[in-house]
Structure formats: structure tokens, C-alpha cells
């Protein structure tokens, strides 16, 4: 007998999902809070500096609310966080949320482009390798992939910068734009997304757009290579697995051409686990590949957090971390939804 419940199991799933999301966010805040308190770096000292008197130190401690009981501090922290207030940076006094809002689009832009490159290059490479296991092409794809896995990325970045920018002059240098455009960007382009490629395209500033491309292409290509390494290798193994399934033979029995067998029949199945893989690699790029950002003077979230880390600017570190964590959770959510979409068995 079917129970007629107006929302049905899907509603239940959504509720369960939201609950676990809230728990994850809460946990994220709790852990960052704990980290902020157990780190033996005194935020007060970091703010007032070397010359401060004891009285100034005490005054600041009270101003920051650090004299209150821990539990109370935590609830204030959570309360503020849910209102979008992650505190102010110790170094710059800037509200962390504003700094993150400035840095995150840069990271997002880089990570997105890198992931696109990784998928566009990685999926066909993986498929190629899987359809000809043991061939030269397979070995090349595997080796190139494994090298991408093993390469110290920042080293490759420095070399790339030296060669493609320093010697050959094919690409723009560090930074998101040439200085000329960088100055103009703030004043002449409405900043809708914070992502230069999108904003300049929307504003029809193609000169600036192409300049931005010349700057992003090298770091994105580099990160794209790493992501390609991961994606191609996973694609290869998923694809090989699918190609050994019986339904592939069925498709061939029906006389389907090989491209259709691989790219439609097998690919639809490969797409299911691949979504998770791509989301994961995207998430890791969003965490910020710190060293790449540093080398390319890319004002992303990864370098923001690391710089803050270096000077023990804990509110900035933790605020940035919470945002990265949220991005991670959000991505997970999206990949989960996509997963349900492509896999009828998961619905």
C-alpha cells in the first residue's frame, strides 16, 4: 500500500540533505574556532605589535571579546558567521568577508578555467588510452598523466614563466592584467562577477579581455595539466571498466559504430563516477593552489590564506578557510545532484 505523503521520498531526501549540510557547516565553524583558540599565537599581540604596553594589550583583549568564556565566544562566532561576519583581519583591519569577496573570484576564475582545460584535455586522452590499452598512445597518456601527478607544480610554474614569458614573450606575466589594464579595470569596467574574463566580456572590453587571457593562460594551463593528469587517469580506468561490460557488446551487436559505442554508450556510464572526480579536482583547485598563486602573483584565496598564515592573522586564515570549506561543501552538493541526474539507479 502506497502511503500518500504530499512530498514523498524526494522531500525527505532534501530535508536530510539540508540537515547534514547545516551540521557540516556547524562542524566547520567549530573546528576553525577551536583551531583559532588552541594555536599558541596571541591575536592581541599580533594586533597591537611590538611596542604596545600591557594596558593596551588588555584593552584590546577586551575589545576582541577574548575575555569572555569560550562557549560564549563560540556562539558569538557562529552567530556572526551566519550573518556573514567572519571578523576583521588583524593585518589590515579589513573585514575578512570583504577580502574574501575580492580574492575568491580570482581563484574561481583560475580554477574554473583550469578545470575546463583539464576536462577538455583529460577526458579524450583517457578515452583514447582506454580504447587502445597497451598501445603507444596509452603509454604516453599514462606517463604524461603520472608526471603531472609527480611534478612539484611551483617549480614547473617558475620554469614556465621563465620560458614562455621571460624568453619567448608569448604570454602575459604575473598578475591578472598588465599594469595599464589593471589600473583601468577598477574604474572602467563594471565589476559584476569579479572575474575579469566575464566582466570584460560583458562590458565589451575585448582588448582587456585578451590581455586577461594572456595572463591567465599559463597558470590555468599549468593547473589544468595537473587536473588533466588526474582526470585522464580516472577516465581511463572508468572507461576500461565500462568497455568490458556486456552492454557494450550488445551495442556492437546492434551494429553501432565504434564512436557511438564509446562516446554514447560507455560515456554515459563513465560520466557517473567522473562527475565526482571532476568535482573533487575542482574543489582542490578552489582550495587554492597556493604556490602557483604566489608565483603568478595571483590575488587568489589560496595565497590570501597562506599569507595570513605566515603572519598569524588567524581571523583571516579561519575566515578564508570557512569560505573554502563552504565552497567545497557546495561543490559536493552540486556533484551529488548531478550524480542523481545522470544515474537513474541513484534516483
Amino acid at each position, binding site marked *: 500500500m502506497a502511503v500518500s505523503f504530499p512530498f514523498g521520498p524526494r522531500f525527505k531526501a532534501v530535508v536530510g540533505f539540508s540537515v547534514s549540510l547545516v551540521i557540516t557547516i556547524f562542524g566547520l565553524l567549530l573546528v576553525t574556532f577551536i583551531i583559532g583558540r588552541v594555536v599558541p599565537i596571541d591575536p592581541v599581540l599580533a594586533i597591537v605589535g611590538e611596542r604596545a604596553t600591557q594596558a593596551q594589550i588588555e584593552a584590546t583583549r577586551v575589545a576582541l571579546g577574548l575575555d569572555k568564556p569560550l562557549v560564549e565566544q563560540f556562539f558569538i562566532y557562529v552567530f556572526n558567521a551566519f550573518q556573514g561576519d567572519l571578523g576583521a583581519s588583524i593585518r589590515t583591519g579589513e573585514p575578512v568577508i570583504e577580502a574574501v569577496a575580492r580574492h575568491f573570484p580570482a581563484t574561481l576564475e583560475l580554477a574554473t578555467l583550469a578545470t575546463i582545460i583539464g576536462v577538455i584535455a583529460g577526458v579524450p586522452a583517457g578515452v583514447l588510452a582506454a580504447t587502445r590499452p597497451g598501445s603507444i598512445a596509452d603509454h604516453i597518456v599514462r606517463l604524461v598523466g603520472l608526471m603531472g601527478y609527480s611534478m612539484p607544480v611551483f617549480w614547473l610554474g617558475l620554469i614556465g614563466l621563465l620560458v614562455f614569458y621571460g624568453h619567448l614573450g608569448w604570454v602575459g606575466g604575473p598578475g591578472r592584467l598588465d599594469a595599464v589594464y589593471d589600473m583601468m579595470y577598477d574604474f572602467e569596467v563594471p565589476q559584476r562577477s569579479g572575474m575579469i574574463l566575464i566582466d570584460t566580456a560583458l562590458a565589451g572590453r575585448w582588448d582587456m579581455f585578451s590581455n586577461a587571457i594572456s595572463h591567465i593562460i599559463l597558470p590555468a594551463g599549468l593547473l589544468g595539466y595537473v587536473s588533466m593528469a588526474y582526470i585522464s587517469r580516472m577516465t581511463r580506468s572508468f572507461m576500461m571498466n565500462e568497455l568490458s561490460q556486456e*552492454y557494450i557488446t*550488445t551495442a*556492437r*551487436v*546492434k*551494429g*553501432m559504430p565504434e564512436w557511438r559505442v564509446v562516446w554514447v554508450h560507455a560515456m554515459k556510464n563513465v560520466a557517473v563516477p567522473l562527475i565526482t572526480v571532476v568535482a573533487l579536482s575542482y574543489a582542490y583547485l578552489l582550495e587554492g593552489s597556493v604556490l602557483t598563486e604566489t608565483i603568478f602573483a595571483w590575488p587568489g584565496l589560496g595565497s590570501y590564506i597562506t599569507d595570513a598564515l605566515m603572519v598569524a592573522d588567524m581571523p583571516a586564515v579561519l575566515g578564508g578557510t570557512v569560505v573554502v570549506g563552504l565552497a567545497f561543501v557546495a561543490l559536493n552538493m552540486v556533484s551529488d545532484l548531478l550524480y542523481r541526474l545522470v*544515474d*537513474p539507479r541513484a534516483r
Partner: protein
Amino acid sequence: MTLLSVKDLRVTFDTEAGVVEAVRGVSFSLGRERLGIVGESGSGKTMTGRSVLRLIRPPGRIAAESMVFDGQDLMRASEREMRALRGKRIAMVMQDPKYSLNPVMQIGAQLMEGLRQRDRVGRAEAKKAAIAALEAVQIRDPERVMGAYPHELSGGMGQRVMIAMMLIPNPDLLIADEPTSALDVTVQAEVLSILDGLVRDRGMGLIFISHDLRLVARFCDRVLVMYKGRIVEELAARDLLSANHPYTRGLLDCLPRIGGSRGPLPGLDRTADWAQG
């Protein structure tokens, strides 16, 4: 007239443990009739069937003196020519419907794929053909099944969908690999009568693979009995139940029967001469 003639077919697998010979020199020919292939599990029935479509996956290799289908030597046909034959003229009902249907494609799409992709048939027309085919194999609610995914079907339904899918293009030769093993006994009879009708009315050739000797005896015209990749006996189906070959006999006798004796069932004697080599 002969539709298919196979001479000295061999299928080998290069594995870690050495070369496995799955089919070792099988020869047979087939007219527009029902040819049964029986034998215990692993005797090479499926491999023989698949070889006709040249669909043995590496590390498997096919070798044959000749394999002529309707005047065309399949061993010498290009991959392109083979593709033109597959599905359209030679079709095969795969053994295990659970794994033989694409899990993330709707049944309808899989049914219509051949028509739409190869024959460039319009959507509406293809759908009509697909529904008709489903009805032909006794599926009650074809509209619903068209929109379903394989995991939503029972094993028997899957098997019927498989049969419907292969019959849509009206092939000249159908290789049916245990097409009724998952079917309820009642549906089984229906499906068999459909296949029977196709052979009789349209002159289709049918290779019927099964390990159920009694079923084959009732349904087929001729039978090949396989053991370890070889044909040990070829005989008319009506003679099967009275076969004399000890292997065939053994296969028959080891089945229990309703109302039979409850003493120990006779087993196969694998030490005999025929079992060697």
C-alpha cells in the same frame, strides 16, 4: 539452402595461465532452420555464437578456415562490412539481460537506437516499431517499459526486451544465447513460439544456445552437442533424448525428475575416452 557455414572455427585466449582454447575446431552449417547448441557450462557455446558476429574481445582471437554468411566470408570482411551486417542481418540475444542492457539509458532509447541511428527512421515511427516489438514479446505495458531503466525491470522482462530489441530489424540470422533461462515457464513458451514463427514464416535462421537439453529437443530442428570447445555430436533434435553418446546421455540422466527415483543421480563420467584431449 545454407545461410551460414562455419569451418574449423577456433577461439583462443592468451591468459596468464597460458593459452586457453575456448573453441577448438568447430564446423557446422545452418539453413533457414533452428539449430540448437547444447553443452555444459564453459563448453564454448557463447563463444561460438559470438564468433559469428566477430565480437570476441581481446585477448580473445578468432581463427577459422572460413565463415560464410549468405555468400560473404565473414573472416575476410572489413570491420565496416561487419558493422553493416550486425544488428541488421545477424542479431544476437545476449545471455545475461542484467548486464547486457545499458544501465543509464532508457529502454525505449535502446530499442529505437538501431532504427534511428542506422536506418535514419523518424522518432515517431521508431517508437511505434519499438512498442510493437515489446508487445510481440508479451510485455503488458510497453509505454511504461519504454521509459524505464534496466534496473527497474525484472530479469524476465529484461530478457524479453533483449529479444524484442534484436528482432526489430528483422534479421536473417538470430543467435539466441539462453534467451529463456530467466523467463517464467509460461512466458518461455510464448517467446519460443514467436521465434518459431519467425523461422517458419520469414525463413530466419536461428542458432539457439541452451544448456537445457529437453527444451532444445522439443524446440529445435538440429542439435550440436559441445564439450570443452569441440562438437562431440551432431544430430537431429528428435533423436537427442535417445542419444547414445555417453556425454549427451550423461547430461540427460543427471537431471532429477518429478516422481523419479530418489536414489543418487548418475553423474558424468569424465574419465572416459571422449572426455580426453
